[in-house]
């Protein structure tokens, strides 16, 4: 009996310690990478970059490889910081875990359709914007919907809890909002006719419209009704790193690598590369 009890106590202790050790581990990596900022981390030849995994044209994971415009931007920045492509570890992030990942140091950078706004600026430093997106509508080619005003009584789909969904709820109350947890479900519902339109940033919609299985079926309306400047998120206290990334972006705009990143990914659908507004790179705190 005494032995059993002793064994049980020891077992419980071991488990508690194991749990504590897991917690401690996260802390460790966090403080380690924050000490010297992004440039210090890059000097070790490795970078962890958080990207989206489910957005064609921007950040799409196929097997273990990632491809898209955000990925190319990530590579440009890594190169500017002196890290080779082989030294980049891509990590999938979703909208709701981007801030925690940066704060805890699980990723060094986030390039994941990350809109710069004031709430996020309180906890994260933003380099960029490297692209200015706007909320738009994706509709079937034959649709008569010409803009957000025409949505009254129509079923429009977006991702639950996202900024575009919220904007439909507050600014276009006559539209019926269907929410899913991913845009791919919205696009499936659009293809099946359960919804009349899908709404989010135009650049994301363009990526879906350009997918092979939907070629010719959908069109982007082309009347953006919001401004979503995409930034690159990094630690709040890393001003030097933030400015450094802005310099890298400026250089990329002039030496053509920014245009090449576009042409290799989203530009494939025929959309010409946007101009990178170097004067707007002023969000670093």
């Amino acid at each position, binding site marked *: 009996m005494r032995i059993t009890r002793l064994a049980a106590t020891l077992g419980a202790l071991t488990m508690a310690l194991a749990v504590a050790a897991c917690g401690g581990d996260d802390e460790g990596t966090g403080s380690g990478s924050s000490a010297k900022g992004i440039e210090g981390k890059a000097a070790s030849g490795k970078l962890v970059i958080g990207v989206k995994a489910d957005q064609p044209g921007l950040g799409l994971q196929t097997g273990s490889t990632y491809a898209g415009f955000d990925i190319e931007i990530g590579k440009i920045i890594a190169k500017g910081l002196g890290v080779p492509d082989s030294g980049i570890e891509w990590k999938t992030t979703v909208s709701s875990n981007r801030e925690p990942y940066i704060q805890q140091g699980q990723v060094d950078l986030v390039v994941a359709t990350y809109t710069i706004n004031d709430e996020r600026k309180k*906890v994260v430093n933003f380099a960029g914007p490297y692209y200015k997106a706007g909320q738009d509508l994706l509709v079937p080619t034959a649709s008569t919907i010409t803009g957000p005003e025409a949505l009254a009584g129509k079923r429009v789909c977006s991702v639950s*809890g*996202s900024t575009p969904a919220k904007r439909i709820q507050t600014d276009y109350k006559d539209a019926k909002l*269907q929410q899913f947890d991913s845009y791919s479900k919205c696009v499936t519902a659009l293809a*099946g006719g*359960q919804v009349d339109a899908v709404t989010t940033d135009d650049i994301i919609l363009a990526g879906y419209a350009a997918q092979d299985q939907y070629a010719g079926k959908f069109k982007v309306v082309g009347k953006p009704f919001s401004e979503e400047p995409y930034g690159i998120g990094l630690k709040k206290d890393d001003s030097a790193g933030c400015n450094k990334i802005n310099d890298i972006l400026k250089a990329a705009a002039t030496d053509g690598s920014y245009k090449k990143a576009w042409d290799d990914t989203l530009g494939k659908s025929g959309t010409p590369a946007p101009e990178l507004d170097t004067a707007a790179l002023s969000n670093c705190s």
Partner: protein
Amino acid sequence: MDVFSDPLNRDVYITGFLWILKLTVAGGAGALVLGVLLAAMRVSPVPVLRGFGTAWVNIFRNTPLTLIIFFCYFGLFSTLGLSLADDIDLNNFWLGVIGVAVYTAAFVCEAIRSGINTVPPGQAEAARAIGMTFLQTLTIVILPQAGRAVIAPLGSILIALCKNTTIVGTIGLMESSSAMKQLINENGDNVIPIFLVFAGTFAIVLIPTGYAFGWLANRLAVKR
């Protein structure tokens, strides 16, 4: 905590948990009725019914709830055209109730069946000896005793069901987990407080529920 002082945010939070409450009540009622029926089938003398009950339990108990809910939308609604309400939210709600109920019914059925095993065989034999039919034996003698024996496990199933209802968010109902996502998306500076409030609400509601079922189980247990 200033996130929740904004009435708009509080609305999102309250609506989220109201949906959870409605899903739990409707899904729980559906699962209980279905589960009892399935348990009756599984102990019935008719082989077809027994087979049906066994198949139901094995299929739904071993399929991830996410898939079942997903099928309710893209299978029942999209493909088969089963529309349960004109309002998008209500339609999604009822589709979610169907999914949660058929899934949980499998667990309820097994709990009740284990309860039936606690009733001494002499009870059924005595009932048959005085000329009761199978249905009479089951509904008058066996099930009342079986039900009282499995109140605690049914409570656990109800608690699991309550938490499982957050999965209905995948087909677009703004229940608590979708509501939490929305608040986190809008308030990136307050991720941890928001998470704690949502997790805490579940704990505050469900811990007393667990104790209540424990108390009920003691009170109603058949003393043998």
